[in-house]
């Protein structure tokens, strides 16, 4: 099993070339993800500038406690993820498995809290297109805010779900002894992806939750 895992794919000359290609490939993929989320960040920036009061107003509907807690949960999952990679590098199978499992768990907690938040939004009638009951002069721009809120946190959650799935697969393969200190590229690149998902949320927190908190 260990030899199978350590095999170099036929197009590569050696393990080092394979590792370098995997790492570069994932970083480039993450650059594409920056641009993917970036389109929504652009729209948000434009409307935030055009409708500052409405956006502040809308932002105050969001629950800072839940958002802040989720941020800490996700940062925690980044810690467990990097510790998993560390475990893989050192060849510590037990620590790799435990940390991957914790990462999945914390990711799940994040999604759970998100689900609670979204349910509250539904109950409050703040879901554009499906159940939006705000009225008033700035209801239009507020609806823009909430459309972007659901689009951005939704796409983020989708990426997180995929991430949890991938970590699960890596966990299963690690359980079956596929990774050694010499070969664990999939663990490394999964880690990179996971940290990226964390970084997106690091920006979403202030953008969405913390506009005009000091206001009326």
């Amino acid at each position, binding site marked *: 099993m260990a030899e199978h895992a350590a095999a170099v794919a036929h197009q590569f000359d050696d393990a080092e070339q394979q590792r370098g290609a995997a790492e570069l490939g994932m970083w480039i993929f*993450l650059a594409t*993800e920056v641009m993917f989320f970036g389109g929504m960040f652009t729209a948000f920036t434009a409307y935030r500038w055009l409708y500052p009061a409405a956006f502040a107003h809308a932002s105050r509907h969001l629950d800072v406690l839940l958002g802040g807690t989720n941020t800490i949960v996700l940062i925690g999952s980044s810690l467990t993820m*990097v510790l998993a990679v560390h475990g893989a590098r050192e060849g510590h199978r037990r620590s790799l498995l435990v940390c991957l499992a914790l990462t999945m768990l914390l990711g799940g907690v994040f999604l759970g809290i998100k689900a609670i938040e979204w349910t509250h939004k539904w109950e409050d009638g703040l879901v554009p297109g499906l159940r939006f009951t705000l009225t008033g002069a700035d209801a239009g721009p507020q609806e823009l805010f909430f459309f972007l809120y659901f689009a951005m946190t939704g796409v983020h959650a989708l990426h997180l779900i995929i991430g949890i799935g991938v970590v699960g697969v890596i966990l299963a393969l690690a359980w079956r002894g596929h990774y050694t200190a010499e070969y664990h590229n999939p663990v490394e690149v999964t880690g990179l992806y996971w940290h990226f998902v964390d970084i997106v949320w690091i920006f979403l927190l*202030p953008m969405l939750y*913390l506009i005009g908190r000091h206001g009326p």
Partner: protein
Amino acid sequence: MARSGVRVYVAVFAALIVLTLATVAVSYVDLGPASVVVALSIAFTKAVLVVLFFMHLRESPGLTWVVAGGGFFWLAILIGLTMSDVLTRGWLPVAGP
């Protein structure tokens, strides 16, 4: 380059938590237009910490730095040039018929 040990990871984690609490706390203070600058600065600092330490950019070859920086730089082009339109719509009125 020396690889980060567990201690470094935990230290970075602690810093990220502190910065998270800070950004939430600061948002309750009225800093006027500086609020956005402060919030984004804290977010950037957190992102940089994750990229350098958790994503091991410190130990990575120069090409990786270019890719990492390139993505953000290109996003800056998208946001920047788009905003150059949004911000200046009212500046130079077009002569009417």
